[in-house]
């Protein structure tokens, strides 16, 4: 209690220093005056009386000192003194301060910016309660466990009823439905779900209720839950919306609840407007009764006492049971579990960790640079430090003083870095792929700020400790005299060379990483997608299922639409296709068999991508015909079924054979087992992403395999907006209730497919550029310091007849040695480290010799330049002046 009270009093005193000094001063004066008076009374002369009084009192300064020590907290007071002194020192050397703070700001800023992404994506928890219990379930062939597919409704139901590991299992699918009535018809993102998903994800409705299990039964009255954003945008936040009906695909649904705008499933998905029971979906509802037709994604919540491994064991048993029970569909299949977290951020995690590692290296380089700067400063401050030690400052006291200066630098750099990070994150927003920002809002929040603070302080210790220890360890007397053997200097020079080599090696690692990404990005962007995306515009039209329920209606709508498009000037080059390149993700998964080939062993299937296209499609897309023929207007449903295959399909499944004239059996469920004759072979198309190798594709004529909607592709020299207007006009002249959505320029769609690569590449390249600059500055610093230290030696050499060129070589060699040493270490480290980023590379090996060689050349060039500038200065040295130097 007493100690506590004293502490607070002292703490208070910290702020009252001046006031207290005066008080003590007055008290001492009073004390001495009283003593003097008493001495006077005792009969001494005035002068002697005062002298005796002073004598008796003793050392005034030492009283003041111990008074101060008792008055406040000496540690903190010393800290303030050190800080004040540090501020003075930094202000006295504005150039040094600016360079150091800027360097640190770059390092800390880059780290803070990347950490804010990591924080949003990997650290911050998901919006659902106990998200770590959430697990996604997939079907997968036993032989190909990576080819994950959706569940059939029968398997879903069987799993839901028979498992013991999950507290709830729910299914979901997505479908765009047309919302009509109450204003212009529009397409709404609809989530088809089994009702259990809401309670499993712990979402509470804003109004009304979510779906209950009765709603999910077949034959129940159709109900829907709408999102808060749809409620506001479409229904003007009508407070009485619950209970009203809306029309989806020409069918009436009663609204039972409104969900908060923040809710979506899964994280990173596009926004959802409407949730309906999957049984009520016009497309998926009828498919639920078909066994073996995959219709939905499945998510489960593990019981709190069940581990993932236990759940895996159980579903393995269950899938074996299903395979026995339903051999026709489930033989050779197994159920796989994937933690929800891994599903959402799984493929982002390695890239983000690599980036975090890369910015860590940038910060280390920055630290090495500042450390170098501090070293040369500490050496030039050797005299000051030696004097302070001679005056009685302890070794520890001086180290503390120097470290305070470092910490101040670190904090200044950190603050500037945070500003830099805020700016960086702000300007990154447009570069960030949409699926990344949807996982979590990326901003510099409290955890990020704490990270920046910790980083600044630990960086200060990293770059400050070695120079501080070295500065105080040097010979006292030699430093006061400022000549004689410079033991400390030599050790400093060694340390500086070491730091420079270290930062060059780190920079080499970063440059090689950045170079590899840049190379693979160049490969990806220069890759031929297999079609010509220039001047190509796409738009989507989908037909409401209840109004357009018969395939014949779809065909006639498509024909009508194409006829009207072709009639418009500038839109002659238009076609229909579904899906278009870049619409799909993942592996080709549409099964087919080849007529005439022996039957495949169970569990093994041929799979390719499938697209239904109008006859003009290949011409509009500029996909070349290799053999055979394109589709024609004669390929109608009344005529023999035909197909066109891609080059890869031909090579993979018809090796050394002529596919033309052969027959394949495939198709969508209504007419799935249809034999189609191969009439043509076309060029490969990259249909999932630019960075994905083209897969096998089979095309069928739209007239023979119609869909309830299609994507329009138009090649036109008109502007995107007039093309869009043209398409809209053509569609709505047929049916004014049909919306046209997802209008996009094809080059943009291609860009979007590589947005992640672009982000990683631009970030890592920015970091390696910073690293290169910092390493250059480091070499510059070391060489110019060494040159200035050797002025006298150079003078002697020149007086003895050395040519300026010899001197230049002498100094340059020194820088070159460091650069080559750093390059060597860096290449070895890079060989080991770049293997970690194989998954981010495309078309380039992680040990790509071209990248390694270019980085080596670039680094040597920068090193020579950085060394040449200071070395040149030595050429102009006048031997007479140089000899008198020091």
């Amino acid at each position, binding site marked *: 209690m*007493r100690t506590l*009270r*004293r502490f607070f*009093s*002292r703490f208070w005193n910290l702020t009252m220093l001046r006031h207290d000094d005066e*008080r*003590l001063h*007055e*008290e*001492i004066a*009073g*004390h001495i*005056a*009283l*003593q003097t*008076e*008493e*001495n006077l009374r*005792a009969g001494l002369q005035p002068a002697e009386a005062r002298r*005796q009084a002073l004598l008796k*009192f*003793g*050392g005034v300064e*030492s*009283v003041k000192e*111990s*008074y101060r*020590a*008792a*008055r406040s907290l000496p540690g903190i007071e010393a800290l303030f003194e050190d800080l004040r002194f540090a501020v003075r020192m930094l202000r006295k050397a504005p150039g040094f301060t600016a360079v150091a703070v800027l360097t640190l700001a770059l390092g800390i800023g880059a780290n803070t910016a990347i950490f804010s992404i990591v924080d949003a994506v990997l650290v911050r928890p998901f919006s659902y309660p106990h998200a770590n219990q959430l697990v996604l379930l997939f079907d997968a062939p036993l032989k190909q466990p990576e080819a994950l597919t959706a569940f059939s409704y029968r398997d879903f139901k069987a799993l839901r009823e028979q498992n013991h590991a999950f507290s709830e299992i729910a299914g979901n699918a997505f479908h765009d439905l047309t919302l009509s009535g109450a204003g212009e018809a529009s397409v709404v993102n609809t989530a088809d779900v089994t009702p259990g998903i809401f309670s499993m994800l712990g979402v509470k409705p804003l109004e009304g209720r979510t779906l209950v299990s009765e709603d999910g039964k077949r034959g129940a009255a159709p109900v829907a839950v709408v999102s808060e954003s749809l409620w506001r945008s479409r229904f003007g936040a009508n407070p009485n919306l619950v209970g009203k009906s809306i029309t989806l695909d020409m069918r009436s649904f009663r609204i039972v609840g409104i969900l908060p705008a923040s809710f979506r499933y899964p994280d990173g998905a596009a926004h959802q407007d409407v949730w309906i029971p999957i049984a009520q979906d016009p497309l998926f509802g009828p498919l639920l009764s078909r066994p073996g037709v995959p219709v939905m994604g499945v998510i489960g919540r593990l019981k709190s006492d069940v581990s993932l491994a236990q759940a895996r064991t159980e579903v393995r048993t269950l899938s074996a049971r299903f395979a026995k029970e339903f051999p026709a569909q489930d033989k050779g299949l197994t159920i796989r579990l994937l933690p929800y977290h891994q599903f959402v951020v799984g493929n982002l995690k390695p890239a983000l960790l690599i980036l975090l590692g890369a910015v860590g290296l940038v910060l280390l380089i920055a630290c090495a640079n500042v450390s170098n700067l501090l070293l040369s400063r500490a050496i030039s401050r050797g005299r000051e430090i030696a004097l302070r030690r001679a005056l009685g400052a302890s070794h520890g006291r001086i180290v503390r003083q120097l470290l305070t200066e470092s910490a101040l630098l670190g904090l200044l750099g950190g603050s500037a870095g945070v500003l830099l990070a805020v700016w960086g994150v702000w300007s990154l927003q447009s570069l960030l792929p949409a699926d990344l920002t949807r996982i979590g809002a990326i901003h510099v929040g409290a955890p990020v700020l704490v990270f920046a603070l910790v980083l600044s302080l630990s960086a200060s210790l990293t770059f400050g400790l070695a120079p501080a220890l070295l500065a105080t360890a040097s010979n006292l007397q030699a430093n006061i005299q400022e000549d004689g053997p410079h033991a400390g200097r030599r050790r400093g020079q060694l340390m500086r060379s070491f730091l420079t080599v270290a930062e060059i090696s780190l920079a080499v690692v970063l440059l090689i990483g950045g170079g590899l990404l840049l190379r693979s990005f160049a490969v990806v962007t220069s890759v031929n997608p297999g079609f010509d995306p220039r001047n190509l515009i796409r738009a989507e039209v989908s037909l409401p299922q209840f109004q357009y329920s018969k395939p014949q209606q779809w065909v006639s709508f498509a024909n009508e639409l194409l006829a009207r498009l072709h009639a418009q000037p500038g839109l002659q080059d238009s076609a229909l296709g579904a899906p278009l390149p870049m619409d799909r993700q993942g592996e080709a998964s549409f099964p087919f068999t080849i007529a005439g080939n022996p039957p495949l062993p169970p569990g093994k299937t041929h799979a390719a991508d499938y697209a239904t296209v109008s006859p003009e499609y290949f011409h509009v897309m500029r996909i070349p015909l290799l053999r055979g023929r394109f589709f024609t207007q004669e390929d109608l449903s009344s005529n023999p079924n035909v197909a066109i295959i891609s080059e890869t399909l031909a090579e993979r499944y018809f090796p050394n054979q002529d596919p033309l004239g052969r027959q394949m059996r495939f198709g969508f469920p209504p007419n799935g087992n249809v034999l189609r004759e191969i009439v043509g072979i076309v060029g490969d198309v990259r249909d999932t992403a630019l960075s994905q190798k083209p897969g096998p594709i089979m095309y069928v004529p739209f007239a023979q395999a119609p869909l309830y909607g299609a994507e329009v592709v138009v090649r036109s020299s008109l502007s995107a907006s007039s093309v869009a207007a043209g398409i809209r006009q053509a569609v709505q002249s047929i049916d004014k209730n049909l919306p046209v959505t997802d209008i996009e320029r094809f080059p943009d769609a291609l860009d979007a497919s590589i947005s992640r690569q672009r982000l990683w590449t631009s970030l890592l390249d920015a970091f390696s550029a910073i690293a290169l600059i910092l390493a250059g500055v480091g070499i510059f610093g070391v060489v110019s310091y060494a040159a200035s230290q050797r002025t006298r030696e150079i003078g002697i050499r020149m007086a003895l007849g050395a040519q300026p060129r010899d001197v230049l070589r002498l100094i340059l060699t020194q820088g070159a040695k460091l650069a080559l040493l750093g390059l060597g270490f860096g290449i070895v480290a890079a060989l080991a480290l770049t293997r970690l980023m194989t998954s981010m590379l495309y078309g380039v090996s992680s040990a790509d010799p071209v990248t390694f060689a270019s980085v080596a050349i670039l680094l040597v060039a920068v090193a020579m330049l950085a060394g040449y500038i200071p070395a040149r200065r030595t050429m102009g040295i006048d031997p007479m002046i140089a000899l008198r130097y020091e």
Partner: protein
Amino acid sequence: MAERGSHKQDVQQGTLGLMILKTLDVLGPLHGYGIARRIEQISHDVLAVNQGTLYPLLLKLEQEGAISSEWGASENNRRARFYRLTRRGHRMLESEARDWKQTEAIIARFLQLKSEDLR
């Protein structure tokens, strides 16, 4: 004014605080100089109060709340800081005096110790 004799010793560490408290308790508010002089007088000038310890100690006691201080005028109208015992200081004095007496008694017993006492 006392001459500095070889017999004169500095106040033992830790006891000056108790002396200050007792002096203020008996004599009422006093300034620093007064406290020092009284302690020296009471000890019959055997003790010398080190000013370098006195003032920091006064400050410490004040921080602990044992004494309070204010500016006042000395006997001959000189501005001086007067220290006064607080109620907390009073309690502190009592408990410290008790401790001291106890220590004294223990030390005394030890000093009287003869070897036969332990047989």
